[in-house]
Structures are given as C-alpha cells and as structure tokens.
C-alpha cells in the first residue's frame, strides 16, 4: 500500500485524517479517518461511495486545497501542498463553475498558461483538445451560453491542456446524456492507453463499472475496501436465473413469467445451476433457448458490503 | 385591470400637488436663513478632521457658499458668524487660500464694519504665509483707512521685503513715516530708495518729496528757533542770521534750490522766496 517515489505512485495517502467544524461552537465532524491509499501508476482507480463518504474531501486533500489534520498526502512524489506537484496533474471538479465571461478557448488557454505552456503551444493544445471533446464549434462562445454537458467537456479539455500524467475527475459524468457518457468513457480509456493515471470519484456505480481497473470504496470517511474490479465482479451474487424455452409443460422449481404460444419465459431461484435447469427443462419437455444468470448489480453488491460494514 | 393604474396615477398627481403646495408654503414662511449648521461648525482642527483628506475642496465649497450668503443684502444678521466662517472655518481648512483671506477681510471691513476682524484675518494669513506680500499690501490699506499710519507702515515695510513684492511698497512704507510725522526718518528712507530708483520719473517724484519734506523740516526748525528767541528776548529776531549768532540755531538751513530762506522781521515769519512754495500746512 505505502509505495512512493520509487514506483512513481502518483498519489499516496498515509494515515490521513480530516475533521471539519462548521461553527466554532459545534463539535468537529470527522470527514476522513486514517485513510491509507495509493494510486498505481497507469491505472484507472474509482473512488466510490455514497454522498458524504469523503470522496470530495479526498480529492481536495490530494490537490492541496485543504490540509490534513493527521497523516501525509503525497502527489507525484511531492507533498500535496507543493504547487510544483500539480504541474503534470489535471483536475475536473464536480459541477465546475468557470468565470462566465470567458470563452471555452480562453478558459483552456488560461489553464495552459498557469501550467507554464508558452503562448503558441497553449493555443495549439487548446484547439486540439476543444476539437477532441467536440467543442470546436463553440470554442469562441462565452461559457455562460454553454449547456451543462458543454461545460463538462470544456472542463475536461481544460484538465488535459497541459498533457498531464495524472488526471483527477470528480463526478465527471453527472449531467451527461448517454452519448456523452459513452464519449467520455472512450476519452478516459484513450488516456489510460497513453499511460495516464486516472482517479475518478463517483457515486454512480454504473460509471465505475464502465471504466475502472480498481475501485476504492469509502463510507463515512473510512476506506472500506480496495479491489480489482474483476474481483468485485466475481463477488456478485446470483439472484436468480432467467430462462427462455420453447414448448413443454410445467417446469419443476420454476416460475412461469410469460407464455406466448410456444415461447416461454421462466424464472429459476438462485440455488440452482445451469445443469439443474437443463435437467428440469428436459423433464418438462421444453427446449432451452437461453439461460441467463441474473446477478446483483455492483450497486447491490455495494449495499450488501456497506450494510455489512454497518452491521459490524 | 385598469383600476390600479388609474389609482396609481391619481396618487402620483396628488402627491406632486401636495409636495408643490407644501414647498411653496415653506418658502413663504421666510425664516431667517442662518443655516443651522453654521452654529455647529466644529473648531479648526476638528473641522479639518471631518474633511477626511478633502480639506481644500471643502474650503472651496464653504467659500462659494459664503460668497452667495454674504451677497444676500436682505439678511441683516448675516454678519453674526462672519469671523467663524472665514477665520474659523475656511482658512482653517485651507490656510493658503489667499483669495478667501482677501475677500473675507473685505467683507469684514467694508460691509460689516469690523476692521478689527479684518486685521485679525490678515494676521492669520501672514502667519501661515509669511511670504504673501498681497496680504500685507491690503492689510496696510486697512490700517491706512483707519488712520493708523505706523500700523500701515509696519505691514508695508514687511511686505516690501517679501519675494515678488512690487517696489511701490517701499515707497508706501516710507510715505507712512511722513504721514506719521517722522519726517527725518521718511527722508532717510526716501534717500535710500533713490539709490535704486525704478525709473527716471519715479526718481524725480521722490526727489520732489524729499525736497518738500526737507523744506518742512527746515521750516519747523526755523519756527522753533524763532519762537524760542521770542520767548527769551521778547522780540522777533532782526534776521535769520541773528538766530545763528545768538546760538538758537546751529546753522542756517538752505532751501532746496540753494537760495536762503527769507524772513520778515515785522511778522516774525519765514517767507517763501519768489518762485518758491511751501507745501501744505502753512
């Protein structure tokens, strides 16, 4: 877990605790407790958890926007408070609010300037990226006039202008339509292909499912689990079986959902397997067309896991 | 839906009329317009403090207001706070405001007939601006109109020494000596002036003055000697030479044109020679 400089982990949290106090007379709320986490180079790590779990706090700590009460945060091998750490880091905040009067192009070029790109290069990069995110036609329109999806894309172009090695995205797909989400996924995957590390915070598990190599699950300021997505997938329980069949009579141990002529849709309980189903169908004289296990969604898995945490 | 609009318009009209009538009534009341604020103008430094860095502008605005206020001849009580306004406020805010000193003193002297206030104002100005010959010039005239010649001379002599002062001040200062009766000192100053005369014409004038005063001095000396002679001897001297012989005079003065003074033993008086004239007072 605690790798650093040596393997070039872009982001490391060691024993990080953060407390908040809204007013000085109130008791402080612990936003993060004893977080130990390392993002591996070149991976897409999903930071998952319900709202209020501490995802945004984690990201702000990573970017030096807030400071830990205990522990250490290292970004790109430097302390997170060091501005130099953020030169090759791109960030897309949740619901970004950019200065209204800037055009998309100006926004992206300004970010390039802050990252130290010379004028000609930042103009070129801005044009390229705006093209890439599909905003070339609106590049010179004021952001004030952008739709939410357009703002999101502009933010993404902005995050990428300085050719970052590490990209942090906070709820990047909120407000995007399915096409937008698809394009976004492709973009992130292409980043990964180029060796860029991606940290991605979301409470929408479907997004994580699309993209992540690993997921880190946060709940109430604690890191509950860090797993390969594949490993997680395989932990999803089977909730039942959906079987399409043709013909035959009543099938033992199954519920008939619908029947149109010969076409039948049957449901089997979870405590059986493919072999058992085939046998039951044969006995009923039905011909199997398709056997599909209905697994719990990642969401269900989550709730189960988190619920267990609660119970424990 | 038209009703509210109509009502609002009616209210608008009524309010305007009311305001107009009330205003007319207020004007008609015609109270003495001593602005209440005047009575509460804070003293010097505190007024400066109030100005928050904008003292000169505030002085300007007060000054403009004062000019309008003191031009209102109907208000007979308007001079009550004259000193407060000019010496206590305007020139406190802007001590270098020459025009305010001049105009204020003018009002004090000519209109309010308070020459004492005028001089106090001039003095303040001269204290703040020791090189302001203009103030000295007008202050001198103030004294002159009061018949206080030495006072006038004092101001004009000081002003004459200030940078940029016009030469006439020296002459005025000297003239006041004459007016005050100290002819000898006046002559000395005039003679000094002649060392650097501004031009031929002025030099001629000064010379004629010197001549006049010398003559006056001579006549006084002669008259005094004659009177002393009469006192002692009980008769008029035969001629002027006797005065010298009998030691009532050190020497016989000569008139400016070189001719001796003539004397009439019958009247006991010194006479002008033909062509000579003695200036006023004889």
């Amino acid at each position, binding site marked *: 877990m605690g790798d650093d400089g040596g393997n070039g982990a872009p982001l490391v949290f060691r024993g990080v605790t953060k407390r908040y106090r809204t007013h000085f007379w109130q008791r402080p709320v612990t936003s993060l407790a004893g977080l130990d986490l390392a993002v591996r180079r070149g991976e897409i790590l999903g930071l998952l958890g319900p709202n209020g779990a501490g995802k945004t706090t984690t990201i702000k700590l990573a970017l030096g926007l807030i400071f830990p009460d205990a522990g250490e945060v290292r970004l790109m091998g430097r302390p997170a408070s060091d501005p*130099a*750490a953020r030169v090759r880091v791109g960030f897309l*905040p949740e619901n970004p609010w950019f*200065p209204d009067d800037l055009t998309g192009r100006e926004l992206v070029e300004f970010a390039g*300037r802050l990252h130290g790109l010379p004028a000609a290069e930042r103009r070129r990069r801005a044009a390229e990226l705006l093209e890439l995110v599909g905003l070339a036609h609106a590049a010179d329109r004021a952001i004030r006039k952008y739709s939410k999806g357009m703002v999101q894309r502009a933010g993404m172009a902005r995050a990428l202008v300085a050719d970052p090695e590490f990209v942090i995205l906070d709820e990047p797909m909120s407000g995007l339509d399915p096409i937008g989400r698809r394009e976004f996924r492709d973009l992130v995957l292409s980043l990964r292909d180029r060796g860029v590390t991606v940290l991605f915070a979301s409470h929408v598990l479907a997004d994580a499912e699309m993209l992540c190599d690993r997921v880190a699950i946060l709940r109430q300021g604690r890191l509950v689990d860090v797993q390969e997505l594949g490993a997680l997938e395989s932990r999803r329980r089977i909730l039942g079986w959906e079987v399409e069949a043709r013909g035959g009579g009543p099938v033992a141990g199954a519920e008939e959902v619908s029947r149109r002529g010969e076409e039948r849709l049957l449901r089997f309980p979870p405590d059986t397997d493919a072999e058992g189903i085939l046998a039951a169908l044969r006995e009923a004289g039905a011909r199997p067309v398709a056997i599909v296990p209905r697994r719990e969604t990642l969401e269900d898995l989550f709730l189960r896991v988190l619920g267990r945490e609660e119970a424990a | 839906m038209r009703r509210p609009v109509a009502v609002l318009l009616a209210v608008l009209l009524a309010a305007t009329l009311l305001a107009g009538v009330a205003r007319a009534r207020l004007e008609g009341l015609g109270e003495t317009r001593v602005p209440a604020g005047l009575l509460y103008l804070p003293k010097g*430094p505190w007024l400066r403090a109030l100005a928050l860095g904008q003292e000169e*502008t505030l002085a300007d605005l007060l000054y403009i207001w004062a*000019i309008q206020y003191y031009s209102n001849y109907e208000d007979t009580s308007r001079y009550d706070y004259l000193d407060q306004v000019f010496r206590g406020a305007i020139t406190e805010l802007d001590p*270098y405001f020459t025009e305010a000193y001049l*105009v204020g003193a003018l009002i004090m002297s000519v209109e309010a007939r308070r020459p004492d206030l005028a001089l106090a104002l001039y003095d303040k100005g001269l204290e703040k601006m020791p090189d302001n010959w203009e103030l000295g010039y007008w202050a001198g005239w103030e004294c002159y109109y009061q018949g206080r010649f030495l006072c006038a001379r004092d101001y004009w002599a000081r002003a004459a020494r200030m940078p940029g002062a016009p030469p006439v001040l020296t002459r005025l200062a000297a003239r006041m000596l004459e007016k005050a009766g100290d002819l000898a000192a006046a002559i000395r100053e005039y003679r000094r002036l002649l060392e650097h005369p501004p031009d031929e014409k002025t030099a001629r004038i000064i010379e004629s003055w010197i001549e006049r005063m010398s003559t006056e001095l001579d006549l006084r000396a002669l008259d005094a000697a004659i009177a002393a002679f009469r006192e002692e001897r009980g008769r008029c001297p035969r001629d002027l030479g006797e005065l010298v012989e009998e030691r009532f005079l050190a020497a016989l003065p000569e008139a400016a044109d070189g001719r001796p003074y003539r004397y009439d033993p019958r009247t006991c008086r010194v006479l002008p020679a033909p062509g000579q004239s003695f200036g006023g007072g004889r």
Partner: protein
Amino acid sequence: MERVLAIGGATFMEAIRHRILYLLLVFALVMIAFSRVLTLLTVGEDAKIIMDVGMTAIDLFGLMIALFVGVGVIFKEMERRTVQVTLAGPVARWEYVLGKYTGLAAAITLNAVLMALALFGMLLLRGAFSPALVVAVFMLWVELMFITAAAVFFSSFSTPIFSALFTAMLWVIGHLAWSLTLLESRLPEGLGRKVVHAVYLLVPDLEYGDVRALAVHGLPIPPARVAWATVYELAWAALLLAIACLAFRRRDLV
C-alpha cells in the same frame, strides 16, 4: 511571475466588466465637469476649484471602486468555488493573492488615469495646468494602491460587506490619524499620552502623502516627502499583502 501576471490579467478583465465601475467613472467625470460650473460662483481665481474637486473625485471614486469591486475579489471566488479551479493548478497561494491584487490595482490605476486625464485636459484648456498637480495625483495613486491592498487583505477572510466596511474604516483612520497628535497634546503627561502616541505610530497616516494643498497653491513640494511617503504607503501595502498571503497559505478552501 508568469502565473501572477496570468491571474492578474484575468482579474483585470473581470474587474473592468463590473458595470458599477463605469457608473463610478461617469460620476467622477461628471463631478469634474461640474466643477467648471462652480467656477462661475467664485469671485476671483477659478482654476483652484477645478483642481480641488478633480482631485477629490479621484480620491473618493478610487476608494469607491476599491470598495465595490475589490472587496469581493477573493471572497466571491471562494464562495463560488472558482478559486478551486485556479488553485488546483500549479499555483502557489501567494501567487494567487498577488495576482488578484495586481489585476485589481491595474483596473483602479486605469480609472485613476482616465480621471486624471479629464482633469488635466480641463485645466489645460483654461491654461491653468501645472506639473505639480501630476505629483499630487501620483501621490493619490499611491494612496489608492495602499487601499487596494487593504481591500484584497480583507477580502481574503471576510464577506464583501465586512470587507467594504473595514476598508472604508481604514481609509478614514488613515486620514484621521494626524488628529491623534492633537489628542496627545491635550493629555497630561503619563501613560495615556504614551498609549496614544503608540497608537499613532502603529496606524497608517495618509496625510504624509497628501500634497494637494501644496500643488494647488503652487508651493514647493519637498521631494524627500514625496519619496518617503511613497515608500511608507507602499510598505504598508506590502505588509497587508504579506499577511494576506501568509494567512491564505494554510486556509482550507472548502
């Protein structure tokens, strides 16, 4: 430095987009033009009132621009999270504060220059312009640079309303400071006097830099006074900015 200038440029562009700025500028120009009318009411020299009113306009409207535009400059960004967008980049906290100041100072300078040009133009037309006035206006500009620093300083930790209040108070204190010497002279010898004296030394005194009276009346302006007053006020500005930067370093940008 590049980053400071980048943020400064962005802040400047934002500042001049505030409509209130144009309103204040127009008011100032009207005030200067109106002084021409006032000259009709004086007896003798009329240029003086144009100079006085013009410089008062520059002083007061400069202050108001700092109040209206300046006090929100950091706070609003913090409220709207836009500050996160900038500081999530490789920008140090002090660069951000200094950049904000630079942009704001540039906007205020632009306004001051416009007002000064209007004033000088009017005076030139009347043949009443004098170079000493440039010195007086320069000192007003130095005062505005100090006030702008105060506005940024307050903006870094309090809401716009309080920042405006504090900044205005500081301006008033700066112009009233000299009266502490009056107070001091009225107190009997002792602790009270020493305390007042100490307070006087700690408080910024803006009267040192006010050479308007000298310029308007054509009196000589000592170069030593101009130089040292400039150093004094700019040092105060640097002090306030330094404190703002330091305080901002460990601030949680929620």
